[in-house]
C-alpha cells in the first residue's frame, strides 16, 4: 500500500536526497503538431484519478500562470502543462490554432483515459472552445477566470495596454499591477513580495495573445459543452470581471460555480485554494450537482 502510493507521487527529491529543480522551466518533452514542437511539462506520476491538463493564460507560458499551482496538483495527480506556440513573424494567432495545439496535447495526455482539462483566463477560453468542439473526450472541465465574449470593459483595458506597451512601459507595469491583483492583496504585501510583484509585472504579455483577446466570441459553442464543468470566478477580478464567469456558469448546462476572493491573478493570490478546488472537483466532478454554487467552507 505504502509503496504503491509513494510511486503515485512526484517526489520533490532526487534519489540522492537533494532537492529537484524548479518546475515548469525545462520541458520534459515535446508534442509535434502541424510541423512544430510544443514544449510540454509532464509530471508523469501514475495516479488513478484522471490526468490534469493545464492551459495557461495571456502571460504566454505555463510557468507564468501555474508556477505555484502545478506543483500542488502533482502531489496527487499526473499533470501536463504546455507552452502555446505563437506564429512566427508576429503573424496573427487564431483561436482555432490554439485549439489545435491543445488538441494535440490532450491527445498525448489521454493515453490512460479522458483528461481533466483546466484553463485559466485566456486558457479558459481555449479550453471551453475545445470542449465545445470535442464532445465526449474529456473527464471534466474547469474554467478559471475565463470569459466567452470580449466586452467593452475588456476592450478599454486592452486599448490602454496596446497604447502603453511601446510608448510607456512604466505606466504599463502599473496598469498590470492595478488590474491583475486585488487591492487587498497589493496592500497586504511586505516590501520583499511587493518588489517581486513589481518585477514580474515588467514582463509584457505576448502581443499576439493580447490581440486575439479582443476578438473572442465562443458564446454559440457553450451549449455544446457536455462534460461536468467547474466555473471559478474571482471576486475582485479587474481583467475578467466576475460577470463573465457567471455568464459561463449560466450557459454551460452541467456547470457548478465557485467564487474565490481574489483578483485575476488568483494563482498567485490564492494558489492553495485554487489548487485544492481543482483537485477536489476533478476527483469527483459530480460531488456538487449541476447548478450548484459551491459553498465556501470558511476557516
Amino acid at each position: 500500500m505504502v509503496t504503491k502510493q509513494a510511486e503515485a507521487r512526484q517526489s520533490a527529491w532526487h534519489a540522492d536526497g537533494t532537492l529537484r529543480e524548479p518546475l515548469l522551466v525545462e520541458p520534459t518533452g515535446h508534442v509535434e503538431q502541424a510541423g512544430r514542437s510544443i514544449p510540454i511539462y509532464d509530471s508523469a506520476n501514475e495516479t488513478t484519478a484522471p490526468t490534469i491538463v493545464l492551459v495557461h493564460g495571456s502571460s504566454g507560458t505555463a510557468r507564468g500562470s501555474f508556477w505555484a499551482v502545478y506543483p500542488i496538483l502533482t502531489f496527487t495527480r499526473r499533470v501536463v502543462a504546455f507552452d502555446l506556440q505563437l506564429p512566427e513573424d508576429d503573424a496573427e494567432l487564431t483561436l482555432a490554432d490554439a485549439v489545435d495545439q491543445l488538441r494535440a496535447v490532450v491527445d498525448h495526455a489521454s493515453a490512460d483515459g479522458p483528461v481533466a482539462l483546466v484553463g485559466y483566463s485566456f486558457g479558459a477560453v481555449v479550453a471551453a472552445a475545445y470542449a465545445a468542439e470535442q464532445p465526449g473526450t474529456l473527464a471534466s472541465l474547469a474554467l478559471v477566470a475565463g470569459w466567452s465574449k470580449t466586452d467593452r470593459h475588456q476592450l478599454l483595458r486592452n486599448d490602454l495596454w496596446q497604447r502603453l506597451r511601446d510608448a510607456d512601459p512604466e505606466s504599463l507595469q502599473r496598469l498590470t499591477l492595478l488590474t491583475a491583483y486585488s487591492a487587498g492583496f497589493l496592500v497586504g504585501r511586505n516590501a520583499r513580495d511587493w518588489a517581486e510583484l513589481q518585477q514580474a509585472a515588467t514582463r509584457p504579455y505576448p502581443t499576439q495573445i493580447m490581440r486575439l483577446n479582443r476578438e473572442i466570441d465562443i458564446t454559440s459553442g457553450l451549449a455544446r459543452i457536455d462534460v461536468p464543468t467547474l466555473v471559478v470566478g474571482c471576486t475582485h477580478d479587474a481583467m475578467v470581471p466576475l460577470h463573465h464567469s457567471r455568464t459561463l456558469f449560466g450557459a454551460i448546462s452541467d456547470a457548478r460555480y465557485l467564487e474565490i476572493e481574489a483578483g485575476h491573478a488568483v494563482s498567485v493570490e490564492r494558489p492553495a485554494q485554487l489548487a485544492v478546488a481543482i483537485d477536489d472537483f476533478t476527483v469527483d466532478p459530480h460531488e456538487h450537482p449541476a447548478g450548484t454554487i459551491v459553498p465556501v467552507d470558511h476557516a
Partner: protein
Amino acid sequence: MTTASATQPSTSGAAAQPSATHAKIAIIGSGFAGLGLAIQLRRRGERDFVVLERAGDVGGTWRDNTYPGAACDIQSHLYSYSFRPNPDWSRVYATQPEIHAYLREAAVDEGVLPHIVFDAELLESTWRPDAGRWALETTAGSFTADYVVTAAGHLSDPKLPQIPGLERFSRPMFHSAQWDHSFDPAGKRVGVIGSGASGIQVVPELAKTAEQLTVFQRSAPYIIPRVDHEYTDGQKSMFRRMPETAQALRDELYWGNEARFPQRRGIADFIAKIEATALDHLHAQVPEGELREQLTPDYMIGCKRILISNDYYPTFLRENVALETSGIVEVTETGIRTNDGEVELDALVLCTGFEAADLPITHRIFDEHGRSMAESWTQGGAAFACSTVAGYPNLFIMNGPNSGLGAGSIIFIIESQIRYILGALDYMAEADASVIEITQEAQDRFIASVDARAEDTVWLNGGCHSWYVDHRYGRLTTVWPDFMHKFRREAGTFRPDEYIVDGEPVAGERELEGVSA
C-alpha cells in the same frame, strides 16, 4: 495578566462533582480543544458531560506558558474559534495573557465552567466491555463515562534535556512552561538552553535585565520577520460592525497559511522564496562574521518549525549576551561545562519543548486487556482519521497522532475534530447504538496513506532532528503531512462505513441491506 471575565474559574469543581460519577462524555483537558468541544456540546443542549482538568484553571498551553514574551506565532484572527470571533484582538499576533483571557471568557460565557472538575488529573482510564463504559481514575476521584475524548494537547508536558548532571545544578532552574515568576534576572548570570519557539521569545526579554545571558544553542533555527501591528480602535469597530470583514480576514489568513504547505513538500520555488526571506532577515540583522555563521541553520528550511521574530537576532549584538554553540558536556552545580570551557550561571532556563511524540496521556489509557494505547502503538502514534484507535472503543483523540501542523492554525484542526466527534455522537444517537470501534484494517489503511504523504516532506528529508518525528521509529507522527483543507475533508466529517457498531461492521450491514432490497 488581564482577565476578561469577572468570574474566576472555580477550582473546586463543586458544581459538577455530585453528578460526575457517571457522565455520557468525559473530556480530558480544558485547553483550546477540550473547551471548544465542551462549548459545542453546550450549544447543542448536551448537559451530560464532564471536563476533567488537571490544573486549577482553563487554558491548557495558554495557561501554562506564562514566560516573558510568550505569544502566538499564528495570527489571532485565525488562531481563535470560528464560532467565537473576537473583534478586539489587540494585534496581529496576540500575546499569552490575551489568548488566555479569551479562553477564560469563552468558558464563562458559554456556561462550560459548571462542567469542569479542576485539579482532576487523569491517572488511568480503562475500557470496561461488560459495562460498555470507560472507568476513569483521577486525583479528584473516580468517574465513568460512555465516551472519552482526550484533549490533552501536544504542548502540555515539558520535556527536559538529556544532559549529564542536570539534576546537580544547585541554583534556580526551571522549564519555560513552568516559569518561576519570583525569579528576577536583574544582575544575574542566566543561561538558556534551547532556541526553538519558546527560546527565541524568552531570550530578548531576559537580555533586557540580566547581567549576562548565555544562550546554549543546539541547532540554529530559521527565523522570518514577524509582520505584526496593533489593530486600531477603528479596525476593531469595523470588525464588530461588519463581522464579514473579520471573516474575510480570517479566510485570507487561512489560505495564506495553506500556501506555505508546499514549502514542506520541498517544492523548489516555494523553498527558494522562504529560504531567501529567512536568510535576508538574518543578514539584515546580524553583520557578516562568526556570529552570523553560528546563527545560520544547517538543514533545509521547514524541517524544524520556522520561527518568527524581529528582536531575537539583534539580542545577540548586545554586550551582555553570548551565543554558545560548542556543545554542552555537562551541567555542574554552578554552571554548564561546554566543549569550550565552563560558564558559571546564577540561573538556568530550559526552553527545551514538550513531549509531543510519545504523548504522556496515551500511557494512561488502557484497553480491556490492560494494554496502554502507547504500548499498542508499536510503530508510534496512529489513529484512524487522526481520531480513533482500534481496541479503544468509544474514545476520540483530539490533537493526537498527525494532528499538529507545520504551517497553519491548530484551531482549524481542533474544529475539524469537533465536527468529527459530534458527527459520531449524532450517528450513535440516531442508530440507538452504544459501542463504536474502528477496525484495525481501516486504521492501517489510513496510516499507510499518511505515511506515504509524509515520505515526501521536508520533515523527513530535510536533514534535521525535530519533534515532529517519532525518532524511535523514524515516522512522522506529530504533524499532518498535507493541507489543512485535506484534514477537514478526511478527518473532519464522520463516516460510519469503516466502524464496528455494537459488534457489527457498518459497511457489512449496508451491503446486506442492499442484497435484501
